[in-house]
């Protein structure tokens, strides 16, 4: 027996569920397939979400028991050498009141489940514990449904939305997107460290319910092109550190070793002191950038979220691009159902929707950012140490005249960096952001 639906969605992450919500709101019957035992079972994320994009799907999310951990009121950026670091931070009262839930932290296991429940309540069908193993096609190659790993597991649909994330063998099998090359993905590890709520409030100097995010660059990634973050949850901290997969392969560094070093850094150690490690996970991130976005639609199918490589590395925005692209895909599908035309040309609208939104704007704007980091390894190797040396010298009071210190600092910097290299770094950096 073959069931017939309007839309089959692969993946119950932010992209797939957003699409399911929009479709269900418009009375279209959609079925979402999730390989995990429940949505979120297979998901990890540093856990920052954006209220603006969630509100487009669930306007009153904060009144609907959305499992928010902390409302972010302060953002810190660290640039770390081996033994020290610079910190810049910005906190604003607006984020506690008018702009509350502009950014907030969630645990993805809880959030994805809640989000999927919202979709179910609207009438979408979320089928868990089921892997989509292939797509069904007609003799012209048009996608006509999905094949799952269950007995009697084929399901016909007018259109299929691939929202299966970055790490899905389906993409390679269908040939819609290439297996990402190592330099186009980052490997990240995450550890959740339990701490009492009051201790987190104190250590981050925040009132209860509010939180801080820290984004970290420097030699902390053992000379590899990568980033680390610390996010506050209600009763835990998420520590995440990752680097380009190609770098891992050449440097032969183990991700968990890098995490252990990170945990002992003098800037990080006091924040996590006494905490109990609760979870540890590893995951891929899309880092391909604008040039490597695959074709996001074709006869009978669309691709949204990470699966389509829609990820902004610099602003660690992935879930919001997933939500917005999922919603755009759904709107495109709604139009297609009205026209009863699911061909490539009918679905082309999806691309225009993306082009007219912040998604393509931002991805284009930052398309030089990843190459910038890749071409300037000194950002992760010698520069943090030279910068650390500079600050340490200037701050050490030892009777040396400041002018002499500055000379010493400049000499130290020039030891590893030619003047032209420094100028290029500044120019490339300026152009990339």
């Amino acid at each position, binding site marked *: 027996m073959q069931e017939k639906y309007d839309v089959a969605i692969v993946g119950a992450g932010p992209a797939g569920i957003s699409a399911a919500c929009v479709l269900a709101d418009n009375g279209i019957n959609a079925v979402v397939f999730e390989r995990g035992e429940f949505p979120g079972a297979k998901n990890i994320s540093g856990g920052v979400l954006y209220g603006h994009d969630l509100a487009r799907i669930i306007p009153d999310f904060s009144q609907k028991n959305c499992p928010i951990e902390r409302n972010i009121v302060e953002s810190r950026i660290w640039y770390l050498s081996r033994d020290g670091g610079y910190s810049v931070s910005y906190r604003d009262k607006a984020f506690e009141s008018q702009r509350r839930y502009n950014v907030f932290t969630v645990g993805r296991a809880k959030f994805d489940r809640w989000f999927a429940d919202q979709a179910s309540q609207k009438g979408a069908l979320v*089928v868990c514990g089921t892997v989509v193993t292939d797509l069904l096609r007609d003799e012209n190659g048009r996608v006509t449904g999905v094949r799952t790993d269950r007995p009697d597991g084929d399901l016909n649909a007018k259109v299929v939305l691939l929202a299966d994330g970055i790490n899905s063998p389906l993409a390679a099998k269908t040939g819609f997107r290439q297996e990402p090359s190592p330099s186009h993905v980052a490997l990240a590890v995450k550890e959740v460290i339990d701490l009492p709520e009051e201790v987190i409030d104190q250590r981050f100097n925040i009132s209860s319910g509010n939180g801080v995010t820290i984004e970290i660059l420097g030699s902390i990634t053992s000379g590899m092109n990568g980033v680390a973050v610390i996010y506050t949850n209600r009763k835990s901290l998420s520590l995440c550190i990752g680097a380009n997969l190609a770098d891992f392969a050449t440097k032969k560094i183990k991700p968990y070793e890098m995490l252990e070093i990170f945990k002992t850094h003098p800037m990080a150690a006091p924040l996590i002191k006494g905490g109990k490690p609760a979870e540890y996970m590893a995951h891929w991130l899309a880092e391909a950038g604008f040039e490597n976005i695959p074709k996001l639609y074709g006869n009978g199918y669309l691709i949204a979220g990470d699966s389509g490589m829609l990820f902004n590395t610099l602003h660690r925005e992935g879930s919001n691009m997933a939500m917005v692209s999922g919603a755009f895909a759904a709107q495109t599908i709604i139009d297609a159902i009205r026209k009863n035309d699911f061909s490539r040309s009918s679905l082309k609208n999806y691309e225009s929707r993306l082009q007219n939104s912040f998604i393509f704007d931002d991805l284009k704007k930052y398309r030089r950012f990843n190459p910038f980091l890749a071409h300037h390894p000194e950002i992760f190797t010698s520069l943090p140490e030279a910068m650390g040396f500079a600050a340490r010298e200037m701050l050490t009071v030892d009777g040396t005249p400041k002018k002499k210190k500055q000379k010493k600092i400049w000499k130290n910097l020039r030891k590893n960096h030619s003047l032209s290299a420094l100028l290029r770094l500044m120019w490339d950096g300026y152009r990339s952001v």
Partner: protein
Amino acid sequence: MHIICCLKQVPDTAQVKIDPETNTLVRAGIESILNPFDLVAIEQAVRIKENHGGTITVITMGPPQASSILRQAISLGVDDVVLLSDRAFAGADTLATSYTLAMAIIKLGNNIPVDLVLCGKQAIDGDTAQTGPGIATRLKYTQLTYVSSIQWIDPENRKIQVERKVDGGVETVLGDLPALLTVELELAKPRRASLPSLIASLKAPVPIWDAKAIEAVETLVGIKGSPTWVRKISSPAPRQGGPKFRAGTDPDKAVAQCLEVLFSDSTFFSNFKLTGGRNSDVEKF
């Protein structure tokens, strides 16, 4: 045949730990699952239906969230489900639980007479193995516990023959229907739900019966009907390994030492039930 399965939603005890300081179960963040023995009961019921025809009704007593295990049962091929849910049922021990389930079975039997009730041999959260026998006793059904295989069922002559696990062996028992079976894991390997029935289960309604619906006496259900008190929960001491004999350069000596220790232990042979005529279990081997 009208078959009824009794299910329980339990915390996944594979993940539950005991807090060493307070000696209580740490349940926070633990997933709820269908008791694995009950899953076998469902599978067995579906197989009997496939052979003999009939209808399967599945019941569970629990909070509204327990409807998820009833949906799981639907996806595996049962016909009807009932959730027994009422604030008055909360805090039930095995006495009150078996009363509540028995009352529901009586009500279900009013529509179609019941031939068989299948329960898991025990629930993995309490491991008491009392609820099934409690139901059988109240309903005066044949009670067949620890069933590892069903040899045959004869609905016309109202007979069933099963194998049940007993200490040190297997016992073959012939009984009358209606019967209540509590089942072992090896009885039947659960199947994977097909896609159409999984989808159907997500859409199926789950009827809820409260205390009134099953005409239960208020003082016999929930905490009021439960005389059991848990005084203390503790972890058993970890097992100590026995002595070790190093073979080294003189394996013969090590073997001799080992045998000496074994022979000097007077309980050694009786543990293995090899003591001949004195032990009645021997006939079974």
